[in-house]
């Protein structure tokens, strides 16, 4: 049960804001800290997931129930897995509203809140992952994979949410342009393998998002490795 955000990692937030943590002036850090507290208070994290059998097919990964997740990258990523947990998580409309509230008056505050929310939704996903992994002792898990990584298309968002009954259960929807709303939300597929597998750690080399990654574009990295 995840009902609130734990204290956010301020260094991570600073990195998302485009500022190396060790070079952040104290005033900036103070703003980030204040925003972190505000976001922790406003966000209402919610998630929902299901564990399904999977079949690796030529065109992608077939989930139990029939949905095909197309593309080669996820297929390769899930090699060795017999099952996968499909889950989605959101920080709620209240997180979006808090950011919106500051956008018209103080952009630094708004940016900091936005990055806090990004860090927050990652935190929730990490906790969800832990919760799922604890139910499968002895198994290994390639890192979670989301639509938009590699060649797994974003237009699968709506189907994934439908599969999880997410609009009704946690109030998470996809727009016609396949954007998740509320904005600070994630859908993900976590492979589950009985045996040992390779790709358990996220790094730029194995990250399917590397080609368009904004941190790599500016010569850095997102900090997840």
């Amino acid at each position: 049960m995840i009902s609130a955000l734990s204290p956010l990692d301020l260094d991570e937030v600073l990195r998302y804001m485009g500022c190396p943590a060790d070079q952040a002036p104290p005033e900036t850090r103070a703003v980030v800290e204040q925003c972190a507290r505000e976001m922790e208070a406003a966000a209402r994290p919610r998630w929902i997931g299901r564990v399904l059998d999977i079949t690796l097919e030529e065109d992608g990964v077939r989930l139990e129930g029939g949905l095909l997740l197309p593309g080669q990258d996820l297929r390769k990523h899930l090699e060795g897995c017999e099952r996968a947990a499909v889950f989605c998580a959101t920080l709620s409309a209240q997180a979006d509203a808090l950011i919106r509230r500051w956008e018209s008056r103080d952009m630094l505050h708004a940016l900091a809140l936005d990055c806090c929310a990004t860090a927050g939704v990652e935190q929730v996903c990490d906790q969800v992952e832990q919760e799922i992994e604890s139910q499968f002792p002895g198994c290994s898990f390639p890192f979670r994979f989301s639509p938009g990584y590699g060649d797994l298309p974003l237009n699968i968002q709506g189907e994934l949410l439908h599969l999880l009954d997410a609009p009704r259960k946690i109030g998470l929807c996809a727009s016609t342009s396949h954007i998740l709303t509320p904005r600070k939300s994630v859908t993900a597929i976590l492979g589950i393998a009985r045996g040992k597998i390779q790709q358990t750690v996220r790094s730029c080399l194995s990250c399917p998002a590397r080609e368009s990654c904004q941190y790599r574009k500016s010569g850095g990295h997102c900090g997840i490795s």
Partner: protein
Amino acid sequence: MEFLELLKTDRPVLLDGGMGTMLQARGLPVGATPELVALEHPDWLREIHTAYLDAGSQIIYANTFGANREKLERTGRSVEEIVSAAVAVAKEAAAGRGLVALDIGPCGQLLEPTGMLGFEDAVDLFAQVVRAGVQAGADLIAIETMTDLQEARAALLAAKENSNLPVLVTMTYEASGRTFLGCSPAAAALTLEGLGADAVGVNCSLGPREMPPLVEELLKWTNLPIVLKPNAGLPHPDGSGYDITPLEFAQSLAALADLGVKVFGGCCGTTPEYIALLSKELAGKTVKAVPRHVPAAVCSATQAVPIDRVRVIGERINPTGKKLMKEALKRGDVDYMLGQALAQTEAGADILDVNVGLPEIDEADMMVRTVKALQGVTDAPLQVDSTDPKVLERALRVYCGKAIVNSVNGESASLETILPLVKKYGAAVVGLTLDENGIPKTAQARVDIAKRILERAQELGIRKEDVYIDCLTLTVSAEQAAASQTLEALHRVKTELGLKTVLGVSNISFGLPARPLVNQNFLTMAMSAGLDLPIINPNVDAMMAAVRCFHLLTNVDTDAREFIAAYANASVSTSITAGNSPAAAPQSTGRSLKDLVIAGLKGEAGQATRTLLETTAPMDIVDNVLIPALDQVGADFEQNKVFLPQLIQSAGAAQAAFEVIREKLSTGEGGNVSRGNVVLATVKGDIHDIGKNIVKVLLENYGYTVIDLGRDVDPAAVVEAARKYEAPLVGLSALMTTTLKSMAQTIAQLHDAGLPCKIMVGGAVLTPEYAKEISADFYARDAKESVDIAKQVVG
């Protein structure tokens, strides 16, 4: 018996139980679309409906919960075929034993501002379902499982505009007592009753044991019958069922008839067994007639404001006499209004008046944009203010909550056009005590007009509590005897007619010295005479102080808590010029303005600019201080000496300086800080706009006038703005790979229109190569680069 007749009896009304649970038990695969069952297995539905009718249900819900075009798109089936099949099988099962409700659930997409679906699009989507349901012969409409009040409003409005059927509306709450989107039962009750629902309540959400607090809250805010259709208890964490037995469900739910609940049923996890037990428990029970005292109140989706003490209406969102706001309206800058709104609520405004009337602009369009933007950032209820009924109607349609309409008056033309709008959209209304003959001189004549307005409103079914009378302030320097007439009329309206009163206060002092002093004292006198809703500038502390003192001295502010919270740490000046908030202006630190901008010190930068303006021309400050300071920060940013947060911080400080300069220029002749227009937009389909907003701040602080079209912007709107504002530069942003194609389309349309503007693009997934491919003129890697591009293009 018809639904409305059932509601009139003193007996409980019984709905059905869960549908999804029953379908899954018959083999509906998880992840399938349940609405298709009406076509594929109508026999299942017939069995389920029959089982509920046998169990005692007087009303069954047709299997149309998700039968809207948004959700059915993936199935290739039409709304009409699903709805007609589902209603037909339900009617066949009911066969005179019960009524059939057209069930309408959420459409599967979130509405603006959290999502992207427009309000009128949602109304249109639900209207199609309603028309199909009417055609199919449904007896009533049940709107359920709503978490967004705006979506519930859209469905209810569609029901009222496309049918004569009774409508019950239930929303889904979390254990916190709020919906996923933060809507409270109070706001739901006030808003939905206003819009014409016949019964309101709760479904899904929680179990019957969690219902009493929600019921108590609903009873406080509505006179309508209350509906409960909860789940079979709270779900076990492992998904293996619910935490109470069918009997416990029936007993704890039926007990709520004693609280005054009228309509009962079950949602997820409940079966005919639950309903049969519930029927048994309810047998012989009468619904307790609980006396209700619903107060005069208005609300937003998240906050109800009862008019049970003085409530301040902030008057600042109004262009009269405000040059900066007029300019903002002309360039469609909604952010300016948002800033005004937040400043007023922080200062203590409870409700915000919104007037965007200006001859040169499309007032209705601007009103809709402003109301939508305001309700995205503030919890305060709004008072929509216009002389044009069309503008008022457009505002009332999109306003999510119960608004105040400002205003109607005693003229018959006004009564005939404004009051029907107030009734249809469930608003409260300000009634001005004037008519065809102008403002009467005497208190008696004003009271007579108030009476007329009240009578006409009540004839239309508007509650007395929703009529607020404005006895009109006249300028005391012109008519000194008038003030006492206003106060007398106000007092009599309050005591003789029993109505709430509203008054614009600031006019009283026009043409006099020491205006704050006059305003403050008149406000105090008016509150003593019975004023409930002063329309004032809450940013003037003398005015808020009068309200706080009034609450203190009339024993409304219990234990002086609010007064002490406001003033314990403030040194209140008693001089008559005291007009600003107790928070003193920042003291000069002796640092130069350039240093302050580089250091990103907002408050100090504004103060230093004020000082500098005493000796230096505004444009010299811009050219010789602000721009060089920003250039230096920009250069440091490029060399990784400072980072994005400091860049934004400096821009914020420069912004504060620019605001002071703009104020100065707006009061004097000539001079223009603008270096030219730049149109910015986040492209159609995309709502990730924080990058675009950072670019906006930077560009503005280099002196460019930014026409910000917002997010999810139609290509045609970009073309129109580029043409209208003769912008030499257009900036487009997109964050998602899926929305890059709208960026390409927007660029193509700009080129097709043959406009001379240059186009810059930016966004996380963009590359210089792709920018070239879609024929953008520039790729901006970051916000700083967008300024460099603007300098190159605009100068």
